[in-house]
């Protein structure tokens, strides 16, 4: 009468729906917490799940309960020194030690902490943001396929045998194959009954009918229950999936005026952009270009590491970027994004040249070019020139970042979903 059941394999993730409901309900709080969480992160581990904590009072489920006051009796265990009639001070903070005997549900936890998965985190983090001018350029050179269901076929390997389909086929075939004999059988039986009703049950005609009935019965019985012809296999075909790819140019000013703090801000900004692009593109190349008076393509470590001194010629970086695009990233098959970070210092005569370069060579090739000016006290010549670029091209955006906390709002501003 007792039963042992192994349920380990059934009903996994039963709470997944409830989890989604929970996340949806506290969307705003979670998004806020996600933004806060990211400002404390290192670049390298930006792309992972996040521990989120929201104030537990925001998500309390209220019940009617007693407030403080009135007269209450409390029974406590572990008496050591009291005798009846003793009078003692109230314990501090009501609940501690003596226990005010209040609601047993009121567990004192100020923060509700839980983990978001990487995908959930990214969703919250980049919610309501969109890549502007997102033309997904397809690339035939990298064929990617996905298995997709495609009906049923009569040939296949045993592991993909579809039992229900096969049995359906078998039923249909049995009905079809037995239909003729069944009709004949019914006729013969009717004829026989008629003969018997006429009292000629023993006549030769009746005998012949009986033999015929017998033969028909065995014919019907001989129809096989299942036949190789019935077998059906689930069919799966390769479906090419369009894959898109993007390249991201990070342009960083490393001249003497860019100190560690500014570079740190720039680094965070680039990282955000990179993460954001990973949401839209499967393949992303990143090109790091740093410049002072001359520009150089470097790897990530070097990009953020050393510090040069001297003046600034921004156009050198733009020139290099243009050359790299022409050489390695034909704009027909690549989505090109660029982010430039600088403190706005530039050699006075160079700024107009930057504007020309952008407008004539670079912007026509790129999807989006974002410029951030970091901790610049006063907009300088580069800013003024870039403002003209912005007026001329919708693919160009610029913002100023003053402190570390500005990064995320500025990023959101740059990539806010434009209402069409």
């Amino acid at each position, binding site marked *: *009468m*007792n*039963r*042992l*059941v*192994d*349920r*380990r394999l059934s*009903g*996994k*993730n*039963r*709470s997944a*729906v*409830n*989890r989604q*409901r*929970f*996340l*949806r*309900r506290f969307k705003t709080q979670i998004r806020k917490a996600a933004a806060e969480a990211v400002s404390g992160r290192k670049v390298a581990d930006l792309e992972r799940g996040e521990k989120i904590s929201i104030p537990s009072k925001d*998500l309390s*489920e*209220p*019940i*009617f*309960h*007693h*407030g*403080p*006051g*009135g*007269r*209450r*009796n*409390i*029974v*406590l*265990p*572990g*008496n*050591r020194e*009291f*005798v*009846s*009639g*003793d*009078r*003692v*001070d*109230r314990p501090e903070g009501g609940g501690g*030690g*003596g*226990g*005010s*005997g209040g*609601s*047993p549900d009121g567990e004192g936890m100020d923060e*509700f902490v*839980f983990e978001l998965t990487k995908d959930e985190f990214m969703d919250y983090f980049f919610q309501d943001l969109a890549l502007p001018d997102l033309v997904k350029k397809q690339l035939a050179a990298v064929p990617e396929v996905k298995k997709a269901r495609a009906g049923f076929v009569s040939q296949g390997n045993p592991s993909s045998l579809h039992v229900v389909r096969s049995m359906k086929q078998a039923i249909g075939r049995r009905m079809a194959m037995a239909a003729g004999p069944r009709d004949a059988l019914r006729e013969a039986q009717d004829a026989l009954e008629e003969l018997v009703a006429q009292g000629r049950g023993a006549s030769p005609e009746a005998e012949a009918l009986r033999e015929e009935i017998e033969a028909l019965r065995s014919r019907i019985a001989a129809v096989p229950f299942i036949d190789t012809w019935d077998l059906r296999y689930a069919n799966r075909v390769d479906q090419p999936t369009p894959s898109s790819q993007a390249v991201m140019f990070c342009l960083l000013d490393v001249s003497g005026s860019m100190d560690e703090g500014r570079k740190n801000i720039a680094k965070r900004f680039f990282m955000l952009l990179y993460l954001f692009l990973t949401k839209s593109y499967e393949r992303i190349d990143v090109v790091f270009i740093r410049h002072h008076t001359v520009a150089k393509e470097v790897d990530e470590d070097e990009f953020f590491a050393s510090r040069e001194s001297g003046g600034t010629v921004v156009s050198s970086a733009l020139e290099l970027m243009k050359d790299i695009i022409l050489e390695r990233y034909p704009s027909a098959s690549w989505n090109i994004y660029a982010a430039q970070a600088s403190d706005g210092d530039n050699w006075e005569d160079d700024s107009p040249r930057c504007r020309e370069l952008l407008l004539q060579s670079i912007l026509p090739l790129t999807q989006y070019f974002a410029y951030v000016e970091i901790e610049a006290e006063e907009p300088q010549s580069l800013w003024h020139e870039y403002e003209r670029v912005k007026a001329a091209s919708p693919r160009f955006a610029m913002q100023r970042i003053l402190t570390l906390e500005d990064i995320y709002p500025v990023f959101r501003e740059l990539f806010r979903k434009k209402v069409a």
Partner: protein
Amino acid sequence: METEMESPAPPVAPRQPLSEGSEWTFELLDLYDREIARVAAHYGLDTYPNQIEVITSEQMIDAYSSVGMPVGYHHWSYGKQFLSTQKSYKRGQMGLAYEIVINSNPCIAYLMEENTMTMQALVIAHAAYGHNSFFKGNYLFRTWTDAEGILDYLVFARNFIAECEQRHGEVAVEELLDSCHALMNLGVDRYKRPAKLSMAKEQVRQAEREAYLQSQVNDLWRTLPAKQAAGQEKRAARFPSEPQENLLYFIEKNAPQLEPWQREIVRIVRKIAQYFYPQRQTQVMNEGWATFWHYTLLNHLYDEGKLTDGFMMEFLQSHTNVVYQPPYNSRFYSGINPYALGFSMFQDLRRICEHPTEEDRSWFPELAGSDWVKSLDFAMRNFKDESFVAQYLSPKLIRDLKLFAMVDDDREDKLEVTAIHDDAGYRTVRQLLAEQYNLGNREPNIQVYDVDVFGDRSLSLRHYMHDRRPLGDSTPEMLRHVARLWGYTVRIESVDQNGETRLVATSEG
């Protein structure tokens, strides 16, 4: 407590343990289950058939977060519960060993695959025989819950709510459930006996009920443009004529603006609250009973030589943790541990039957020297926490636990110790501890008092104060939930012992 944990009598039979290692297999589970069942039958435990399910820790967390319902409808609060349980489990703050057992027929008990053989045996004894027999025997469960029908009803509830979500949108259903959950504690009949649940009946009756209810409600609100004088006269008769304790029931039947499907959901939450009501009233007894029996059954098997010493060491370690009662001034103290109190009381009852002292003879003349199995069975069947403590807490146990009573009066500047574990104090301590388990004292007593039927349709609730204790700060928020269900203005007044009323909060509908 140490005295309760004395090692069992030395084994008489030669050791022939059921198993040696700590790994479990399905064969072993079956073997242990049969052995435990045999001993349980020896002690006359009457149980529903058991369905013991082996599950993963994730499924166990699942079961925790759906408050022990094996089939639950979807709601964000269960997701929240899941996240917090998962977190504390991952941090190792809590073990997931006992505790999930479903009051149904067959009785479903969960075993977690990560556990050792010892823990599995402990859980089988605790849940499948301890709790199970309590569910089957205790009078509250017998009157209030229907073990046969509950699984079907939960399936019905989940399907119905899922259907409503499709038809009326998840947000609308969620808001409604939020409000109902908030009022769950006010959704139980304390004195009336509920009808039995069953899915077939529910489904057939639900459609009829929808139509009928709507017509009733409409009728209630069909107000004629009567003359002023007539209106005044009618106003004198209150509706409801008697205060109603079951707020959710009142709303289900009378809220003017609820749609039929909304009434059905109110009803579902109310039924589930009612189903869990006995568990809230018998926590000490239920846990104490189950703990007493896992302790007794496994010790019996050990005395027969069927368990190894290693098994017993592991078992006793876990058992002692469960029944530990930290003193009031310890930083681990969080109220009286129901396992500890319940277990000690049943152990003490057995002691009084088997080895009574003079004191016991004068306090419990009818128990001293009686058959302990029968006396414990009687206690399990006929009491709830409140009356169980009032009846059976012995002076010896009060001394062992060093219980004392304090009074906290906001008119006094200090707390006063009213009674301790001495001759003068036993009865007071026992009485006060029993009252502490009276749900009526723990939760505010709130009743539906009046509806302004001929006016603005506003609903008045009354809070009958006990010992001048006021309502907490959640009251305005709670009233908004009531108002959401009622649809019109809701107000709540507190009535003190002298009958004076004071308006506490109002919420516009």
